[in-house]
């Protein structure tokens, strides 16, 4: 095996990886450090998932414009080229061990030694197997991201009568996309009493095209031996208990948009996981419990807007440069936990020596607003009122150093 060395290696050349690279370079220049940065990307070009996200809604916060996925990506790709950041494309990282990432590159299998490594590989889709749908595995069953890829990049039409399971953003986007291509989208079926996707997408993908959204319903069985013929739809109560199972809808395609999971396969052995996100447990620098291993973007927690991915990743790149410059971080002994009403909060531990912006999501909708309260044990140390909170919209709250410096363990809760 050939060995090469780079100071900062970034796995993934999508929006997270590109922003991390630029953040790392900017910070290194401030430190007057001459460091080598390398992006390892499995496909033949940069951009990651943005290449197949041909719809708009990107960049509203980052650039104050409404861009399509590819347009957002081009802005970063141009900066990567301008900054002459090295990219190793068509190269797949297989494992991280003892400070070396193994990569299956075009030049053969290599061992890439790093001082800091930033994981930015994004996430994968939950499948119908994860949610226990029964059937004989006929043709016509897909996850929404796969349909998006095949429709927008490969020019493949999958079917004519489509049922979409799950009201996640990708499912909503594909409902519109397929309708524009001439398919009949019979409906979107969501098991919860409220939709998981952004309000904007419900309006512009379903309401605009009169595609029905069925709440408290899901597909539980797929009929058809070699090809889909129909599906059984089950009605649920508000606690996801099945109450009625007797609708059969004829269709030839079923698309599952039932959630995304951080792609954590590459995390080295011993890296602590955070079960609320299924991503890594990270400190205030987005560094995992393995020194020098950082995470950012969807690999850390699934974001709803790429604008947040870019901010978080640029910050992580800067932290990686700081780590190399100083060779260590301030110890992060204050653990931050998600309490009542909060499904997760990140980062998971802080030092109390600098202000930190926490990202979090609420467990259930609070349409009339709620207070987000930070407790140190029993003591309330910070509170912020937010109007209208829903699980699908990530919340960012900044806490100053002063508020956290004497804390021992922080819990975040909602109080309505």
């Amino acid at each position, binding site marked *: 095996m050939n060995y090469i060395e780079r100071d900062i290696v970034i796995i993934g050349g999508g929006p997270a990886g590109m922003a991390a690279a630029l953040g790392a370079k900017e910070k290194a220049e401030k430190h007057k450090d001459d460091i080598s940065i390398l992006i390892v990307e499995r496909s033949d070009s940069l951009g990651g998932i943005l290449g197949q996200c041909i719809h708009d809604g990107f960049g509203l916060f980052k650039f104050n414009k409404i861009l399509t996925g*590819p347009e957002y990506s*081009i802005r970063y790709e141009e900066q990567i080229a301008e900054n002459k950041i090295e990219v190793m494309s068509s190269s797949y990282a297989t494992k991280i061990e003892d400070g070396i990432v193994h990569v299956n590159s075009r030049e053969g299998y290599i061992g890439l030694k790093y001082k800091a490594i930033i994981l930015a590989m994004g996430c994968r889709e939950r499948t119908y197997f994860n949610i226990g749908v029964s059937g004989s595995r006929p043709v016509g069953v897909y996850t929404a991201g796969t349909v998006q890829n095949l429709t927008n990049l490969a020019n493949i039409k999958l079917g004519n009568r489509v049922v979409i399971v799950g009201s996640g953003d990708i499912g909503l986007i594909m409902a519109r996309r397929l309708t524009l291509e001439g398919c009949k989208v019979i409906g979107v079926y969501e098991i919860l009493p409220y939709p998981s996707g952004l309000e904007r997408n419900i309006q512009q993908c379903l309401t605009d095209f009169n595609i029905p959204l069925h709440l408290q319903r899901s597909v539980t069985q797929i009929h058809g031996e070699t090809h889909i013929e129909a599906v059984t739809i089950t009605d649920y109560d508000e606690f996801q208990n099945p109450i009625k199972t007797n609708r059969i809808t004829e269709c030839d395609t079923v698309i599952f948009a039932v959630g995304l999971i951080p792609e954590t396969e590459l995390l080295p052995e011993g890296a602590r996981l955070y079960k609320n996100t299924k991503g890594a447990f990270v400190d205030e620098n987005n560094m995992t419990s393995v020194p020098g291993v950082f995470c950012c973007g969807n690999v850390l927690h699934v974001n709803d807007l790429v604008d947040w991915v870019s901010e978080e990743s640029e910050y992580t790149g800067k932290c990686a440069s700081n780590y190399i410059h100083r060779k260590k971080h301030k110890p992060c002994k204050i653990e931050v936990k998600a309490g009542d009403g909060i499904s997760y909060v990140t980062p998971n531990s802080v030092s109390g020596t600098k202000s930190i912006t926490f990202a979090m999501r609420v467990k259930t909708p609070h349409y009339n607003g709620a207070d987000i309260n930070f407790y140190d044990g029993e003591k309330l140390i910070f509170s912020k009122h937010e109007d209208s909170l829903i699980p699908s919209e990530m919340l960012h709250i900044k806490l100053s150093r002063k508020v956290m410096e004497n804390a021992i363990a922080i819990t975040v809760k909602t109080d309505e």
Partner: protein
Amino acid sequence: MNKKLMCVLCPNSCSLKIEYDEKTKQISSVSGNKCKRGIQFAEQEITDPLRVLTFSVLVEGGNLPLVSTRTKKPIKLSKLIETADNLKKVKLNAPVKAGDIVYKDDICKVIATKNIPKT
């Protein structure tokens, strides 16, 4: 008639509550907006909603069979399907550059949103 909408003009993403007459589409009140543009947006949404169409167009001789495109400006919601049908008939030749006008008619100008180099 009541309608709830999210304004998409700026990052504030105000939740608008609009009261209007179903027949005449005359708006009697708009609330939730942080600026005047929200009111204009509400009026547009009720009387004549506009949307950006994003679609893929066939390309020959490129590294991908399709190029992603968008209407340069939002067009009438009622014209989305018709425009999509027109774009299905377009065949481009690589290379295509992001920003190139790939289709034009009375309703809209459609531009490429990514680069498709020749294979």
